[in-house]
């Protein structure tokens, strides 16, 4: 049986008096790319933030890499922060630092590296993420949307994490940039061997890179299954999602790619 790296049981979260999740269960297996889909406002970002310990759930338990996530347990959280990398919805790069310095932040925070080595490794991550070395000198406001996403990915990869959380990494990218990002993600996860928790609305991304997809609806995870199974799922929202005009187009182009 494959190892489980994230396991969420009976999760209930409430924000601003509104119940966002109820009885939510989720398992993420080691090494897989798990896609998270769901309508806008169904709590995908909230789920990610809860797993990351940024939001305290009302009920339920979350285990990551065999350790219980508890925002109050600083020691465990510090160990966990060392093991995961996060790309937030808008990049969340520190606006006053250059891209290089942004990538160095987690290294400086968690490791005791000489500064020359830290900046060399940061440059390596920047280039792995598909940016040019010169871009490392720029500050985030000088980058385009796609470059900012790549810079944020470089920062997420800074510590060679076991799990990478990505919140809509291709939203707002042009189709070419998005496709490049998909390819990059797939290559990196294959070569670096990390697990990916990928929130996305991008059907092409789902077809291209995910191993399984978890569908969030009615405050819980309805199903977790490979895309081929989801296409046959009877739930109306899932059916509409994969068989609407966009779903079909993505399906067809994925089939085309697979055949060629």
């Amino acid at each position, binding site marked *: 049986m494959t190892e489980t790296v994230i396991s969420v049981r009976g999760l209930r979260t409430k924000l601003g008096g509104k119940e966002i999740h109820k009885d939510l269960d989720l398992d993420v297996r080691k090494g897989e790319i798990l896609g998270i889909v769901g309508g806008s406002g169904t709590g995908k970002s909230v789920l990610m933030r809860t797993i990351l310990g940024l939001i305290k759930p009302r009920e339920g338990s979350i285990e990551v890499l065999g350790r219980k996530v508890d925002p109050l347990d600083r020691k465990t959280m510090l160990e966990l922060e060392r093991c995961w990398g996060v790309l937030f919805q808008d990049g969340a790069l520190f606006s006053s630092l250059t891209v290089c310095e942004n990538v160095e932040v987690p290294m400086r925070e968690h490791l005791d590296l000489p500064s020359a080595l830290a900046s*060399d490794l940061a440059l390596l991550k920047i280039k792995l993420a598909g940016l040019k070395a010169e871009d490392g000198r720029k500050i985030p406001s000088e980058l385009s949307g796609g470059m900012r996403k790549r810079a944020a990915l470089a920062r997420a990869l800074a510590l060679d994490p076991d799990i990478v959380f990505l919140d809509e990494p291709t939203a707002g990218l042009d189709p070419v940039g998005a496709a490049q990002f998909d390819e990059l993600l797939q290559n990196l996860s294959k070569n670096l061997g990390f697990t990916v928790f990928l929130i996305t609305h991008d059907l092409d991304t789902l077809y291209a890179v995910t191993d399984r997809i978890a569908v969030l609806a009615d405050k819980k995870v309805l199903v977790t299954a490979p895309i081929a199974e989801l296409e046959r799922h009877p739930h109306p929202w899932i059916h509409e999602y994969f068989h609407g005009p966009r779903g079909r187009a993505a399906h067809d182009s994925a089939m085309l790619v697979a055949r060629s």
Partner: protein
Amino acid sequence: MTAKAQVSVSEEGETARVRLAGPWTVAAAADLDGQLKKLRLKSKRATLDLSGIDAIDTAGAWLIRQAAKTLVEGGVSVAFAGADRQASALLETVGAVDQDSNPPRKEPPSFEEMLARLGFHTAFAIREARNFLGFFGLTIETFAATALRPVRFRFTSFVFHLEAVGLNALPIVGLISFLIGVVMAYQGASQLRFFGAEIFVVDLVAISVLREIGILLTAIVVAGRSGSAFTAQIGTMKLREEVDAMRTLGLDPVEVLVLPRIAALVVALPILCFFSDILGLLGGMLMAWVNLDISPQAFITRVQDRIPIRHFWVGMTKAPVFAAMIGLVGCYQGLRVKGDAGSVGRLTTRSVVQSIFLVIVADAIFSIFFNLINI
């Protein structure tokens, strides 16, 4: 994974065998970097034996690549041995992103660069002054256009800002003015007592509050609380492209955002100034009563008999001018925001500093002017 990562060398004849063992991960990177830097080989051929590595990540792979490159540059031919699947994949991934194109590190600035920076800032200041003047003209023009077609004036917005900059500022302006009145009367009394001229405390407080202190205090408080708010509000809208959206919808940002704010300030500041005058006089009166036994009755009579009303008008004349300056600077800096949220903070600070500076310069010019015409 508890074993320590290490580098060990055994040289036999022509070929050196460099054994890398333990966890080659970013956690051990600092240590490994040091070990590799000390690596010296006598042989001309080296084999890097990776079979002892039990964990590897990109940092480790990069260090190995880097070590190999240093050896090759030293004229040693390098071969790899014993790399498992993951290690070779990583070495390949890391090798694929070309390492040679690293830009040189930043040097400390040279004299020429400093000179260039000085020139840049000078040119920037001149450009800034010109742009501000341009903005001033644009506002006047929009004001004139709106005056001709008053229906275009944003009355609701005007009233909203009137409340924000005027009504809501009353407590703080009043309190500060009152306290300054108290302090001036107290300090004045302790000096004038030497001459037995305590009664002149009334003149001192009344003239300085009416002419200078009332309006200056009010203007500075308003610059700090409303000028900065203007910059932050408009700046945030600018960041979120709301200002651009406005333009595409055929709305003029100067008409919609700038005019109501400046108009509200121009109306509010004289009222606040009047309020400040009254509270300042009250503070002085209270102190004169407590400290010098000058009854409020006597204080008021003396103010009425001895202090010409023109002092009051001098203060009030400055109010709308200062208001326009604070409003203009606040809105202008707000519209200059671009890029990131940090720029809102920077420009808000600049807006406050500039408007206070301008207010004080203008006050000095007013002083000279009123002096010349003997008011």
